[in-house]
């Protein structure tokens, strides 16, 4: 095939890549070995108020469910065993794929590390600290508790109800904040009771402040991707945003995002591209099919780069509309909280502005955020993943498609599943993606 001549940008690997790999590796190993170090283990979702258990001490380690489910999905052989185990236990394959991967891991009594090493004996948490963000999250750990009980382990569980909607105005109503803060106050008493530990408000304040800084920093990093050429591609961003889903309240996360932010700024200054032949910019939506990230490499053959998504930007990153109408990183509060009450109010007010809430409540708000990303990040088209593995984030996605089309944005929808490879047709999706690229006038640069 004749190679088309297009502009080639300089590119280079991220310097902090190894650091990112090590942080993630240590995170899963720390959870596994927490008891050997005299520490505590807890389990819960990536959206949960993870800064709250941090008040129990610096030797408290968690593993968050969704990233763990995604890690399982990446290793397809292990994922297949997890699916078999959950289906054999009577759970339907239409349930949340992360949840099924997680349950499967418990049912198999095996734990997987980031390099694919499968360890015998699933590490039982000392307690579960969860919040109800969607119908699956409401049941996820209830079933974990039940599965552990069947193995003779009693795991106490606390759940926070966060169903107060998404604040479209800049401020969230006081009564909604009070409702969640009240549950967190009760939760702290519950944590002291079930662990027998004395709770430190000072550690809580540190953790809350870390979380606010880390999530604002991630948004700042994503905003740098407005540059042409994009300094980061979304496939790489998946390995970086994950720190925020694992340990957004930890100083390591803040420190890593500061390092990354500085490096990405430098890449923008020097015009370093993630994809050397960038000539068509797309964004995606919702979690990708984790077992098939190679689809991003196929896109690069057309000079197409995914510069992110509302999901990658807003699952962890905190954003707001500025007076000039731009969607920008959320300004952090003027000062660090000093008391338990201040810390709880600060983290609730901050967290409830997470853009991803709009998925559940207000499709038109999500569409507006997506169209604003299209404008600000100079995006040519949107690839929408109709993700059969996640009811929550797929909710209203067809409405988002209509909204984007009405706004004049080319949209390519494809069906798949973030965590169950049986629901993703790689060859078929690639054929349709090829047709889409051809329909917008792109030709393959090289094989």
């Amino acid at each position, binding site marked *: *095939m004749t190679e088309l001549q297009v502009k080639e940008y300089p590119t280079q690997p991220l310097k902090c890549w190894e650091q990112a790999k090590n942080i993630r590796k240590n995170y899963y190993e720390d959870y596994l070995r927490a008891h050997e170090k005299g520490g505590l283990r807890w389990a819960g979702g990536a959206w949960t108020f993870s800064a709250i258990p941090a008040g129990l001490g610096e030797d408290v380690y968690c593993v968050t469910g969704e990233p763990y489910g995604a890690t399982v999905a990446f290793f397809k052989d292990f994922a297949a065993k997890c699916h078999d185990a959950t289906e054999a236990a009577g759970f339907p394959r239409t349930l949340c794929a992360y949840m099924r991967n997680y349950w499967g891991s418990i049912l198999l009594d095996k734990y997987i590390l980031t390099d694919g090493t499968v360890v015998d004996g699933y590490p039982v948490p000392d307690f579960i600290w969860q919040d109800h963000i969607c119908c699956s999250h409401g049941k996820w750990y209830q079933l974990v508790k039940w599965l552990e009980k069947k193995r003779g382990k009693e795991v106490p569980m606390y759940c926070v109800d966060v169903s107060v909607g998404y604040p479209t105005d800049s401020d969230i109503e006081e009564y909604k904040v009070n409702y969640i803060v009240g549950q967190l106050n009760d939760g702290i008493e519950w944590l002291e009771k079930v662990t027998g530990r004395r709770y430190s408000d000072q550690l809580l304040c540190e953790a809350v402040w870390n979380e606010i800084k880390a999530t604002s920093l991630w948004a700042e990093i994503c905003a740098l991707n407005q540059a042409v050429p994009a300094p980061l591609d979304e496939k790489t961003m998946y390995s970086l945003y994950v720190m925020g889903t694992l340990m957004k309240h930890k100083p390591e996360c803040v420190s890593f995002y500061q390092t990354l932010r500085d490096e990405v700024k430098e890449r923008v200054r020097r015009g370093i591209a993630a994809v050397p032949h960038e000539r068509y910019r797309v964004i995606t939506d919702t979690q990708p099919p984790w077992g098939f990230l190679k689809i991003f490499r196929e896109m690069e053959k057309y000079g197409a780069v995914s510069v992110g998504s509302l999901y990658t930007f807003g699952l962890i990153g905190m954003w707001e509309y500025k007076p000039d109408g731009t969607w920008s990183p959320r300004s952090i509060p003027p000062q660090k909280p000093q008391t338990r009450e201040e810390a709880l109010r600060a983290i609730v007010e901050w967290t409830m502005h997470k853009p991803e809430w709009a998925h559940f409540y207000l499709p038109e708000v999500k569409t507006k955020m997506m169209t604003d990303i299209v404008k600000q990040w100079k995006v040519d088209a949107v690839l929408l993943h109709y993700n059969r593995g996640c009811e929550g984030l797929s909710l209203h996605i067809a409405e988002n498609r209509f909204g984007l*089309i009405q706004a004049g944005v*080319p*949209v390519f*929808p494809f*069906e798949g599943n973030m965590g169950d490879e049986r629901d993703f*047709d790689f060859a*078929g999706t690639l*054929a*349709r993606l*090829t*047709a*889409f690229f*051809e*329909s917008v006038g792109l030709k393959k640069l090289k094989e």
Partner: protein
Amino acid sequence: MITAGVDVGAKFAKVVILRDGQVVARAKALVGFDVLKSASEVFETALKESGLSRSEVQKVVATGMGRNAVLQKPPINADEAVSEVVADAAGAHQVVPTVKTVIDVGAEEGRGIKVEGGKVKDFVINERCAAGAGTFVEAMARALEVNVEDMGALSLKSANTIPMNAQCCVFAESEVVSLIHSKISKEDIAKAIHDAIAGRISSMVLRVGVERDVVLIGGVALNPGFKPPLEKELHASIIVPEFPEFVSALGAAVIAANPTR
């Protein structure tokens, strides 16, 4: 200028040769296990019909799911490959210049394409199962013990409506067997099958919207039993051009003649 379009589909390979925008030859044959060999034989037949040699054809564009099998491979040596969606749009525009919506139903795949001036504006393709495509009719014809060519005419003899599932070939076949055991007439079952396919295709096409003129192409367009229920589902009259199964190959030939289009 002399160009050719080669559409290597799931079941048939089709070739159209154009001389200055006019069709001078068409040929088609079943695709065998050796895709290149089958397509090459069809290409050779078309060359014979046109009285041309391969060297006189200035550019060849391939399309269809087997397009890469003939790309830069002798004896066809297609210069370029384009997706079915792009070829369908160009071909439909060639035969019906006012076309805004193209519906292509082939052996394994159904497509709905929104078109403007022969260019694709939006499109949708059925996912995974061929339940809404030609293979489905073939499978159901086997279950009914009727020649597939007779299925359309048979369905037009019925005025009854029997609900049927067209989401899965396997389940639908079981349903047909149940209907046979329930003493439902072959005419009624044949109509139910066509209604089901029309329902499935229309729900897919409606995702991109239906705007007149609507053109139906692909092998299934030859089936007289399919157009009436599809028109009913879409609330739109449908144009079936002459030689609907060659429209994609024609589009590829048109693209070959107009590389900058």
